[in-house]
C-alpha cells in the first residue's frame, strides 16, 4: 500500500508546491505536508504530496550496514533453481 518514492526537490513553485526530480523525470508536487524543506533535499512523494523528508545520512547508514553484513558473511546458500537457466 501507499506507493511512495524518494525524489529530490529542485525548486519551489507557487502555492507551496515544488518541482521534484528523479532520474530526469520532473513533477510538480505539494509541500503542504512538510516543513523546512530546501532545494536539494530528498522527500518521500505519495499521491502528489511530499509526506516526509528523506534523511540522507540515515539512508547511507542503512546501506553501509548492509555492506558491512556483506563483508562479514562468508558463505550463503545458492538461489533456488527455477526454469532452465
Amino acid at each position: 500500500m501507499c506507493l511512495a518514492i524518494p525524489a529530490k526537490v529542485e525548486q519551489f513553485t507557487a502555492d507551496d508546491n515544488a518541482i521534484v526530480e528523479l532520474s530526469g523525470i520532473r513533477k510538480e508536487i505539494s509541500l503542504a505536508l512538510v516543513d523546512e524543506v530546501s532545494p536539494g533535499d530528498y522527500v518521500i512523494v505519495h499521491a502528489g504530496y511530499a509526506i516526509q523528508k528523506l534523511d540522507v545520512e540515515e539512508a547511507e547508514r542503512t546501506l553501509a550496514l548492509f555492506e558491512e553484513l556483506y563483508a562479514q558473511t562468508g558463505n550463503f546458500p545458492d538461489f533456488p533453481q527455477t526454469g532452465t537457466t
Partner: protein
Amino acid sequence: MQSSANKKHAYTRTLDFKTGCVEMMHGSGGRAMAQLIDQLFMTAFDNDFLRQMNDQASFTSSGGRMVMATDSHVITPLFFPGGDIGCLSVHGTINDVVMAGAKPLYLSAGFILEEGLPLGDLKRIVESMAAAARVIPVPIITGDTKVVERGSGDGVFITTTGIGMIPENVFISSERAKPGDNILISGTIGDHGIAVMLAREDFAFQSSLESDTASLHDLVSVMVEAVPGIHVLRDPTRGGVAAALNEIAQQSGTGMMLFEERIPVKPAVSAACEFLGFDPMYVANEGKLIAVCAPEDTDKLLDTMRAHPLGCNAAVIGEIIADSHSFVQMKTRFGGTHVVDWLSGDQLPRIC
C-alpha cells in the same frame, strides 16, 4: 491518367490551414471533400497510384508470399514528444508487415476526422505521415476520409493497412519458437508509452523522454539478411513486452525465462514508472522488436542488430523453455522468480 497538377479545379479559394477547422462538409462527398483530398492528401502523399483517382488503386504484383497487416491508430495527445499520430500510423502498420520479414510495398489510409479539428493540425499530421512513408519508402496508394460530429471522435483516427512481400527463404511465425531458442529485444523498453503518458497535461510531469516510434523495416531487412532463419519477430506495442511474449508463448506452446537485469530500460522510464506505479514490461513501444532465434544464430543476430541505429541497445533477454502452461517467467535482479503475466485490465496510475 491525368495528373493532379494539370486538373482543373472547381474551387478557387484554397483551404485555410491557418485558422480553418474540419467541418462536416469535408466528409459529405461534395466539393469540399474533393478539395480536402486534392489540396491535402494528394499533395502530401503524391504518387501515381493515388493520381489514378479511382475507387481503388491498382498495382502489379510479381507473385509470391505476400502479407497484409492493419492497425487503427487512436492516441491522445495527437502530438507527443518524438512523434505524432501521423508518423505513428505509418510505423504501426509497417512494423506489423515487416515482423513477417517482409518488404513493405503499399499502404492505404482511412481517416476519421472529428468536426472542429484544426486544418493546420491535420496538415501537420498528414505531412508527418507522408514523410514517414517516404523514408521507407512505401507509397500510400489509396485512402478514405470520413468526418464525424464533434463529440463522436477524438481529433483524428487513422487506420492504415499495409501489404508486403516475403523473401523466398524467410519463414517467420510465432509458433516457430522452440525450447532453447534465445529471446532478443532491439532496445530500451517502455519509451513510447511513458512519453505519451507524461505528455498528458493533468499529470504535470516534465521530462525529455521521447516516443521511440520508428519504422523497423530496415532493421528487419538487415536481420533477415544476416539470419534468414529467424524464428519469430514481434513488435511489443500495446500491452508491452509482456503481452508480446505471452502471445508468442501461447501460440508456440512454450514457456519463457527472462532475466530482469538484461532488459534495457532507460532510467527516466524506470523513474516515471515508480511515480505512476507502472511496470515497464507492460508499457507500449512503437519502435522496438522482439526476435526469437536458434542459439547458434544468436550472436550473429545480436551483432547485426547492435550495428543498426535502431538496435544499438539490443540484448538477449531470455530464452524459450518447455512449459505446457506457457508461463513467461522472469528471474529478478534480486534473485527470485515471478510470472510475467498478461496485463490485467488497463494499466492505470495508482497510489497503492
